[in-house]
């Protein structure tokens, strides 16, 4: 990487905790992989009702509200000015399927006059990025990355690369997924097990280290290296290869040996076969303590930013993600 990439802010809306670095540091502190206390699933709805103004809420689907609140928390945490010089890279697995179903239902129930123009833009998965860009005044690139399991990790790796290349001065990167019972039921019926099980939104703010220092920003950590790739596997299946060139390359690029890692943040989430595969792939870094955040925070595309945040707060650490189907992402985060 040519320009060093600093992490200057974190923001998240999750069942256990909502807030910026201070609040999340508490929720992410070891042992962060314990099961969360039984939490009221409606807590996130209450957070949204509190933090999204009615005028805004009227025009934002629920998953877009989730993304926006987390994005705002991250930007405030970073103390970044809303001057347009911000890119967005948002990872998601399911996007706004709830709005897609509602849009279709409008037609099925009442014909053409039941179609809602207000809902239509939400049927394209970039709606969270599109609405967040408007609310946050983000005029650089805005990308939405759809992937099973590790969309958040991929988004952060992608954003870091754009910052490192000098293409954008700062980026909000991470992921969001909402858990809609109707959507979940249909997908479970059709796909027999898919990655999203919880709902949350989490983002980190990335900027050039020099830029961050120049504006006196608090530096939480650094993205020392990041890479994505794919191990051989059938779609949504578990593969047999245990050697990850992405892992090796990322560690080499960061100049960090396995012994120097304070932790490895994994994707262990109760999907036994996938968890076992990942464990085999991570054998080269077996000496470092493994921390899995999915138990406490739920499996969603927000995990990428949560893992990176945890790594930044207590680094240097490796963040690794391996999805069914073989998609993988590795990031070395310096504390």
């Amino acid at each position: 990487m040519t320009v060093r990439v600093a992490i200057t802010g974190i923001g998240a809306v999750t069942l256990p905790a909502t807030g910026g670095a201070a609040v999340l540091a508490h929720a992410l502190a070891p042992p962060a992989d314990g099961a969360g206390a039984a939490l009221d699933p409606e807590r996130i709805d209450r957070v949204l009702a509190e933090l999204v103004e009615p005028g805004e809420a009227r025009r934002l689907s629920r998953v877009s509200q989730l993304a926006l609140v987390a994005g705002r928390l991250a930007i405030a945490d970073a103390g970044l000015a809303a001057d347009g010089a911000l890119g967005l890279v948002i990872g998601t697995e399911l996007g706004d399927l709830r709005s897609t179903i509602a849009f279709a239902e409008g037609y099925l129930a009442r014909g053409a006059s039941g179609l809602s123009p207000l809902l239509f833009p939400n049927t394209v998965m970039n709606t969270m990025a599109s609405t967040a860009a408007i609310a946050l005044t983000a005029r650089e690139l805005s990308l939405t990355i759809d992937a099973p399991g590790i969309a958040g990790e991929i988004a952060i790796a992608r954003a870091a690369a754009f910052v490192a290349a000098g293409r954008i001065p700062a980026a909000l990167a991470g992921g969001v997924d909402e858990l809609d019972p109707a959507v979940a039921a249909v997908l479970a019926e059709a796909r027999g097990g898919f990655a999203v099980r919880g709902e949350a939104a989490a983002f980190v703010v990335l900027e050039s280290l020099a830029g961050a220092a120049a504006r006196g920003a608090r530096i939480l950590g650094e993205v020392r290296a990041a890479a994505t790739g794919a191990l051989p596997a059938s779609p949504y299946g578990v593969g047999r290869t245990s050697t990850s060139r992405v892992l090796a390359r990322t560690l080499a690029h960061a100049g960090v040996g396995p012994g120097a890692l304070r932790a490895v943040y994994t994707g262990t989430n109760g999907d036994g076969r996938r968890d076992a595969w990942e464990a085999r792939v991570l054998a080269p870094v077996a000496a470092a303590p493994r921390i899995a955040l999915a138990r406490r925070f739920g499996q969603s595309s927000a995990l990428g930013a949560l893992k990176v945040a945890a790594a930044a707060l207590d680094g240097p650490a490796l963040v690794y993600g391996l999805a069914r189907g073989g998609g993988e992402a590795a990031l070395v985060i310096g504390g």
Partner: protein
Amino acid sequence: MRRVLVTGLGAVSPFGAGVKAYWAGLAAGTCAIRPATLIETDGFRCGVAAEVPDGVGGSSRRSRADRLAFAAAREALEDAGLAAADHRDTALIVGAVGGGMLEAEAWHWTRRGRPVRGPARLGAVRSILPSAHAESLGHRLGLGGPRESIVTACSSGAASLAVAAELIAAGAVDVAVAGGADALTRICYMGFSALKLLDSAPCRPFDRDRKGMSIGEGAAFVVLEAAEHARARGARGYAELTGAAMTTDAHHVTAPHPEGDGMARAMRAALAQGRVVPGDVGYVNAHGTATLQNDRIEAAALRAVFGEGRVLVSSTKSMIGHTMAAAGSLEALATVLALVHGLVPPTAQHEHTDPEVPFDCVPRVARETALAHAISNSFGFGGQNVTLLFRARP
């Protein structure tokens, strides 16, 4: 930053399968927008669309969009002539929007007692997501590099090329397969209809009497390759991708910035990357959807960047409709082929240029022009702008 060549092309378009059929249609200025057969149009004013003709190929267990994507990606890879060993590190960046929605709709409609054209299988819902294409393609083509599905509405196909180019320029990979795919869907058709953005006749981009868009479907992929890697294996390539820029209007979820601010910024950034001045660009393949708003604002942005009348402008959507996630890549392909053949594809159905569009829109007949540099614009719903700049190979 390393230089990026286009070394393989693949397409499935409303003109049929293959790049050859695609270019033949474009060069002849043929309009492929016809009465729709894939979706039900009763009760709606617009009954036309640009559909890929019969014989998409592939197993009927796969979604139509997956089959379009596979045919185009495979053609591109074969065209590039890469060794099998290269596949292991090759990136796959796919622009997608509808995913397997067409089949998922058929299933859902049938469940609710509505008649549909085409089969309705629960299994189809398995591949509903935009990421399904990359998951399937990556596995079938044995691609082990970065695998990412990019969703930026109407500019997804172009954004995929921009992301892939960045991966190569930064040295993360040497080779990438990048492009987009979309099949017709009821939701897309009904949505644009509800917004009153569809013309009931084939669309007329930049025309004074234009009345809206036509929807289409297809897929196109290119192989992008680091110049040294291509040179080392003796591949000349078709053109060089010298600039790729993405900006966001951050203005409104459906309406573009009224002065085309984001569009102009994307074009200027791409030109700056390629170290090209506006005067060097001979052709702009426009986003040109034929909506009243897009064409007027895009023309204003073009004027701001190039000056009046200083560049040829045409819209491929006049022939193949708006192919959604495939648009950015099908149109990038058209731009590359224009450079290769020294022939600018026309704007079909163009009779009277709108006075607010101070450009030669290459009406109805393709124009022979030696070109050194050309750009392709894709401006997605919600203000997600992508400009790709290509240079003719020497």
